[in-house]
Structure formats: structure tokens, C-alpha cells
């Protein structure tokens, strides 16, 4: 696939220099540096070949600004990094939002954090930041926002645009699970359009990463996605290990898998409870939390925390697991296996639930690709991409498991997929326990101070919500030069306005819930 893509790309654009990169080191296969005028054609090339735009981001190298596009494909392993160098005093680039719908969102983000103008972009207004901010936060030097930009940035006011009825859902709304705000443009009971407004929990994580050493940033990862804290933790440590070339003992790999999968079950359980509560049924919430507490007990004994885990270290684990942990995990597996029948009775077979979710928020394959949705939402749409299988990390390559796939892509499918994923997780844990090797749980000489090689890396892992991508640029110091988090909830949220259009207001809740959003992860 890589060779084929390279040949085709070369044939289509004769004067491009395509560099083959080492995938184990960088996380992508090919890299291309472009002129701004070519980007649309190159993106068109990838679009034709069913690539999706995994992430678009900016890096400030002081002499120039760089836009990085990572193109990837669901069906096989081939990643291409496309870069674009911009003049830092007047950064401007053409917009990709007409080709890839997700670029609309990424470009808004880059615009407010770097001040890059995207020509032809339909809505460059504030997305994350509050109106009072007067500089571009992620630029290395403090550059004030120009007056013209400021007016444009602050221009978001739907009520001024026309006299339809607007309904504010959030930022304090029980079904947005946190502080998401969605402005809904209504036509009677039907939704004409939806505008998510983000940033109510923007905690400056990416800026913070540039201010802290690799070690200091470690606890932040668990606070980004607090429901899948282990996965985020794992993503970060595996990314840095890959960048700095640290080996990890086999035992640590297996324990990582066990802990992450336990956490995945916790996360899905919470989703079931919260989703059903959104739809009006409170009792599943109590059952789900009961199960969750049991799992948390097991994890707490070894990690020391209940929610915002920070268990993994570069090169291994914080401490070893003991027999009590193994026994506890086995008990959890036995208990959970028996609970699925109960959930089926309580939820899956419930007529009200089925009628409220069947055929709601249907995601087709093509649309899923344009928006680069990921995780259970993508698999619900019928694309069986699971990064644990596609780009295996930790001990996943040695474990045998199935990836559940949906057929209709509606909210009901998302429920079934998440239930099946919990069963898959149980199988994974069981195998991992069986094969758990003896030996050290952390490398003997775990580095006290990290100074990874110069260069960049795009590393992905599968979190409970989907593809987490971490893009790190290292300048050989002990702090990352730039760290971008491509978070799964953000790309799953992007598709929401399209799904909501033409639906009833009450269904908007059902759709929003089915996407399983975690807001601090979107806002970062």
C-alpha cells in the first residue's frame, strides 16, 4: 500500500519530493513538503483514494509556521504526513474544509491558536477561547490579535444572523455530560442547524505540555479523558517511549493491557448509565455504577487512585501487581460475564430504548470518513478499524480478539457495539492474565531525565472513544517543543451538526449521547 501510494503520488505530481520515513520511529510512512497552492490537489488525491484526514495541526518554528496534515486510511496501514510552510508574519493557507469536513473544525482551532488565515473557510470564529483573549496562545512569541481578526473572531452570535428560534443546550445541561454548549437553530420542534461552542473547559493542556518536562506532564494525561485515563496514560507513555527509544519489559506490557481494558469497561459502563439517564431511565445508572465500583476497587489497590490514574511510567509501571490484583480481576470477569444478561433485559430488550434509538443518528461509511470519526462510532458505521489490531502496541499483538462491527450505524448499534466491546475486553484480560510473564515491571535503568531524539512522531492508540493521536515535536531538550493531542471525542463531535439536522429536539439528546463525548478531552 505504501509503495503503491508513493508511486501514484509521484505520477500525479511529478515535481514532488516524497521522502520515505521509518514507520517505527515516526509513526508515518511518507512525508511530503508542499507549496500552499498544491495542497488542495494533493488532498483531492488522497480523498479519491479513500484516505481520511486524521489530524491537521500547526507548529510554530519561529522562522516559519508549519501546517501538518496526517492522511491515513482505514483499510490498511499507510500514513502520509504532508507539511506546508507558512510565513509567520502573514500566515495564510487554502482551506481543506470543502474536501474534508473535519478540516472545518481543525482549521478553526488553528486559526485562533496560531492566527493562520484559511482562505475560503466559511466560519472562522472563536471555537475554544473566550472573547477577552488578545494573543495567539500557541505561538512561541506573544503576538497580539489584529483589530480585524479580533472582530472576526468575536463575531459569533447566531441570534444576529436571522430571527429563527435559537435554543441553547448547555453549557449547564444534564445531557451534555459536562460543559458542552450546542446552539440549536429550531424550526418548530425540528432542528435546522446545530452549532457546537466549545472551550468551556479549555485547560491549556497543549500549552502546558510545552512548559513542562515529559515527566511532569504525565499526570495531566489522566485528567484529559478522565473516563479512559488509562488509555490516555498508555498513549502518552508509549509515544514517549517510541520517541526516546525506551524498551519495556514483557510483564509491564501485559499489565498495561489488563489495566487499560479494565478501565475501558469502566468507561463503557459509565456511558451506558449516563446515556440511559439521558433517555429518561435512571435505574441502569445505578447498576452500571455498581459494576464500576467493583472494577475501581481492583484498580485502586495497585494504582492508588480511583479515577485519574497515573499508573504507567516511561519504561514500565509505577508498581507491580500482586496476587490479590489477579484474583480480584478474575472475580470481576466472572461477575461481569453474568451481568450482560441483566443489561440485555434491562436495556437492550427494552422497547422504549429500542424505539428511541433505532434509526436515529445514522452514520454512513462515506460520511464517517469525511469527518474522520473513530472508535465505536466508526465501527458502528460498519468500518472495522481498531488500532489495537491495526497498529498494535503494548501486548496487543500477542492477543487474539475480535472487533465487533455494526451494520446500521444508528444509536442502537453504538449501544450493542459497546456491550460487545466490554465482552471483548474481558476476553483480552483473561488471555493477558493467563500469559502474564514473570520478570521486572520496569526497566532497570528507567531514565530519570528524558531527552528524546530530535524530530517528530505521530503515535496512535485506541481509547474507549477511539483514535487518540499524539504528535510530538522534540528539539532534544527535556520539554516537548510541541505536543498536539488528536482527541477522539473532538472528531466524533464534529459530525453531530449533520446528524442533528432535521431531527426532533428530543432526538438530539439521543444522538449526542450515542457519540460518548468527554468534554475536557475535546477542550483539552
Amino acid at each position, binding site marked *: 500500500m505504501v509503495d503503491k501510494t508513493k508511486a501514484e503520488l509521484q505520477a500525479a505530481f511529478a515535481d514532488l519530493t516524497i521522502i520515505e520515513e521509518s514507520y517505527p520511529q515516526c509513526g508515518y510512512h511518507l512525508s511530503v513538503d508542499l507549496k500552499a497552492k498544491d495542497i488542495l490537489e494533493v488532498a483531492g488525491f488522497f480523498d479519491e483514494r479513500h484516505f481520511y484526514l486524521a489530524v491537521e495541526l500547526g507548529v510554530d518554528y519561529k522562522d516559519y509556521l508549519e501546517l501538518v496534515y496526517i492522511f491515513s486510511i482505514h483499510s490498511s496501514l499507510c500514513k502520509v504526513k504532508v507539511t506546508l510552510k507558512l510565513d509567520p508574519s502573514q500566515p495564510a493557507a487554502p482551506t481543506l474544509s470543502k474536501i474534508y469536513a473535519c478540516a472545518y473544525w481543525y482549521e478553526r482551532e488553528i486559526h485562533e491558536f496560531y492566527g493562520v488565515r484559511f482562505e475560503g473557510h466559511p466560519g472562522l470564529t472563536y471555537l475554544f*477561547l*473566550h472573547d*477577552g*483573549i488578545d*494573543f495567539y*496562545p500557541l505561538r512561541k512569541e506573544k503576538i497580539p490579535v489584529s483589530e480585524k481578526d479580533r472582530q472576526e473572531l468575536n463575531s459569533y452570535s447566531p441570534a444576529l444572523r436571522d430571527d429563527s428560534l435559537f435554543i441553547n443546550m448547555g*453549557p*449547564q*445541561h*444534564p445531557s451534555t*455530560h*459536562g*460543559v458542552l454548549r450546542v446552539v440549536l437553530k429550531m424550526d418548530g420542534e425540528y432542528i435546522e442547524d446545530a452549532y457546537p461552542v466549545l*472551550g*468551556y*473547559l*479549555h*485547560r*491549556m493542556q497543549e*500549552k*502546558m505540555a510545552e*512548559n*513542562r518536562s515529559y515527566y511532569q506532564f504525565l*499526570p*495531566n494525561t489522566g*485528567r484529559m479523558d*478522565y*473516563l479512559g485515563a488509562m488509555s490516555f496514560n498508555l498513549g502518552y507513555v508509549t509515544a514517549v517511549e517510541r520517541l526516546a527509544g525506551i524498551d519495556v519489559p514483557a510483564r509491564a506490557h501485559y499489565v498495561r493491557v489488563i489495566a487499560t481494558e479494565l478501565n475501558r469497561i469502566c468507561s463503557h459502563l*459509565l456511558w451506558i448509565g449516563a446515556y440511559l439517564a439521558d433517555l429518561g431511565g435512571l435505574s441502569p*445508572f*445505578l447498576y452500571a*455504577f*455498581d459494576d*464500576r*465500583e467493583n472494577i475501581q476497587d481492583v484498580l485502586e489497590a495497585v494504582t492508588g487512585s*480511583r*479515577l*485519574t490514574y497515573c499508573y504507567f511510567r516511561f519504561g514500565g509501571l509505577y508498581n507491580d501487581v500482586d496476587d490479590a490484583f489477579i484474583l480480584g480481576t478474575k472475580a470481576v470477569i466472572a461477575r461481569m460475564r453474568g451481568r450482560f444478561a441483566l443489561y440485555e433485559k434491562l436495556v437492550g430488550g427494552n422497547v422504549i430504548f429500542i424505539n428511541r434509538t433505532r434509526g436515529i443518528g445514522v452514520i454512513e461509511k462515506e460520511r464517517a470518513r469525511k469527518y474522520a470519526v473513530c472508535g465505536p462510532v466508526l465501527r458502528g458505521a460498519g468500518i472495522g478499524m481498531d488500532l489495537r489490531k491495526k497498529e498494535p502496541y503494548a501486548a496487543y499483538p500477542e492477543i487474539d480478539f475480535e472487533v465487533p462491527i455494526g451494520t446500521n450505524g444508528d444509536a442502537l448499534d453504538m449501544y450493542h457495539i459497546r456491550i460487545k466491546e466490554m465482552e471483548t475486553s474481558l476476553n483480552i484480560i483473561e488471555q493477558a492474565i493467563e500469559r502474564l510473564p514473570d520478570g521486572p515491571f520496569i526497566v532497570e535503568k528507567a531514565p530519570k531525565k528524558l531527552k528524546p531524539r530530535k524530530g517528530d512522531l505521530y503515535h496512535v492508540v485506541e481509547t474507549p472513544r477511539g483514535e487518540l493521536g499524539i504528535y510530538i515535536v522534540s528539539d532534544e531538550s527535556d520539554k516537548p517543543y510541541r505536543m498536539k493531542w488528536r482527541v477522539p471525542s473532538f472528531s466524533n463531535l464534529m459530525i453531530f451538526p449533520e446528524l442533528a439536522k432535521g431531527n426532533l429536539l428530543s432526538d438530539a439528546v439521543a444522538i449526542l449521547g450515542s457519540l460518548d463525548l468527554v*468534554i*475536557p478531552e475535546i477542550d483539552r
Partner: protein
Amino acid sequence: MEKENLPPVSFAVLDKVLDLARANSLWPVTFGLACCAIEMMSAAMARFDIDRFGAGVFRPSPRQADLMIVSGTVTKKMAPVLVTLYDQMPSPKWVIAMGNCAISGGPFVFEGQYNLIEGVDKLVPVDVYVPGCPPRPEGLLEGFLKLEEKITGKRRFPGPVERW
């Protein structure tokens, strides 16, 4: 007004009764901000069961609530919303700052930060601080007990006995 015209009753006893009622039926507003909100939810669920203290009636509308648990990070974008919510709550009302973020900005304070309110007490008066990142549900329960003590002047349970 002349002194003789004052009503000859004292409301002190009634106030006490009211306080007792208030302390035993705190209605929090459903207002989860970040990670700490999940522990707040845990506190309301079966194992920790905040209903034991009459405080399990989470209200989505601030107008029906008298307690705000600020459970998470308060950003500058969120601040006006938070203050509006607080203003909409009918008096008497109380605030619990749950977690380090709500107390002081917690782990997200660094030089040059541009989006954080370093402590919710800069916006609204706070009655009880519950430290932790996140605090355990038991911690939040203890916060409730403290608040009850603050309202009635008495602790519901005697404190832990020092035995050794």
C-alpha cells in the same frame, strides 16, 4: 418603630427548626464541570448513597436548588455562566468547592496561563472546601457533614473517636 410594637415572639427557635430542615435536605444543582463530577456522581450512587443525608435530589435547574457543588476546573469562559447559575439559586444557598481545581486552579496553574480562574472563591462565596484531585466520594460526604454543621451548629455524627 417603638419598642413596644415589636412582636413579642422570638423566631430563634423557628430558625433553628428551619436550619435543621435545610441541613437535612440540601438540594444540589446538577453541575458537573470535569473529572471531579464523576466522583460527585459516584457519591450519589448506591455505594456511597448521598441520599442518606437527604442530599440526593440533584436538580437540573438552579432555581430549585440551594447548593452548588463546583466540581472541576472553572475557566474564564465558564465564569460568567457559573455566576449566573449562582445568582439564579434562591437564598439561602451554599457552595462547596470540590477538588483542587475549584479551590485554587489545581494542577493547571502555570506561569502565563490564560484561561483559568484560580479558585472559584474569586467568583462566588464558598462555604466548604473539599481538597483532592479528585476527592474521594467519602471526602465529599465529609464536606456535606461539614456544611450541615455550619448550618445547624451541630455535627450530625460525633467526629471520629481518638482511641490510641
